[in-house]
């Protein structure tokens, strides 16, 4: 098999794993407990999901001008993603919502009440 073929397969695998990571992130947004925990779910979309999809596209990109744009997109995502997450976390805390800090069993109970509110 040629090197190009191997790179193409790695790129496609990367795209697939990235898409699965995005699905897991969305699942986490729905399943986890309070707003702080849900933020960790979206962290997967920001990093593993977007990162692997961009990496896959990079390997499959037809010429260097596309690659440059993809790298710049990745750089900007890495800068802005955490900043936005931090802004949300800080705003939530400023609004007076304290994170739940309890044993795993009780957090399952709180989860239902949080879900109702959401």
């Amino acid at each position: 098999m040629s090197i190009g073929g191997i790179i193409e397969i790695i790129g496609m695998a990367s795209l697939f794993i990235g898409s699965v990571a995005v699905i897991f992130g969305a699942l986490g947004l729905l399943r986890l407990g309070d707003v702080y925990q849900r933020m960790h779910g979206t962290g997967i979309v920001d990093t593993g999901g977007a990162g692997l999809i961009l990496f896959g596209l990079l390997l499959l990109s037809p010429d260097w001008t596309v690659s440059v744009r993809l790298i710049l997109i990745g750089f900007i995502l890495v800068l802005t993603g955490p900043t936005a997450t931090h802004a949300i976390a800080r705003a939530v805390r400023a609004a007076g919502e304290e994170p739940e800090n309890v044993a795993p069993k009780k957090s399952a109970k709180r989860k239902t009440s949080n879900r109702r509110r959401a």
Partner: protein
Amino acid sequence: MRQIAISTALLYAIWLLLSGHYTGLLLTLGFLSALGASLIAARMGVLDEEGLPMQILVRLPKVTLWLIWEILKSNYGVVKVILNPKLAQPQMVSVKASQKTVAGLVTHANFITLTPGTVSVDVDEDKNIILVHGLTDEFAAACLEPEMDERVSGLEGPSQ
């Protein structure tokens, strides 16, 4: 002056990479807009050590591979918690940061947030403390370890 030159060079490099049209007139216009944008930024007073932290940007590639590996590892950890939310042990921890510059502190906080499983909720610039929300004991403990702190401090350079 030096900051304006660096900023112009960076902007022009990005313009060259993105434009794809390389004729004399367009090259000149591209340079002029890069210079103009830098001058405006300088006049706004955002081209200081915080707005263009060159000492950090230059050394960033050193930690990139390590950071990607950490991110992939904790992605897996968070997926495990998502599949079984009962594993979550949410908690807040205060992380002591050893960075000397504000840009370094922000980089540290951003790295913590970038790693899934930990989110920096509040940053205290005066006391150099980052308040972190961890998803499980493991993630919170990983943040308290000095490794990330040392690597980010290494980005600030040895001279400071």
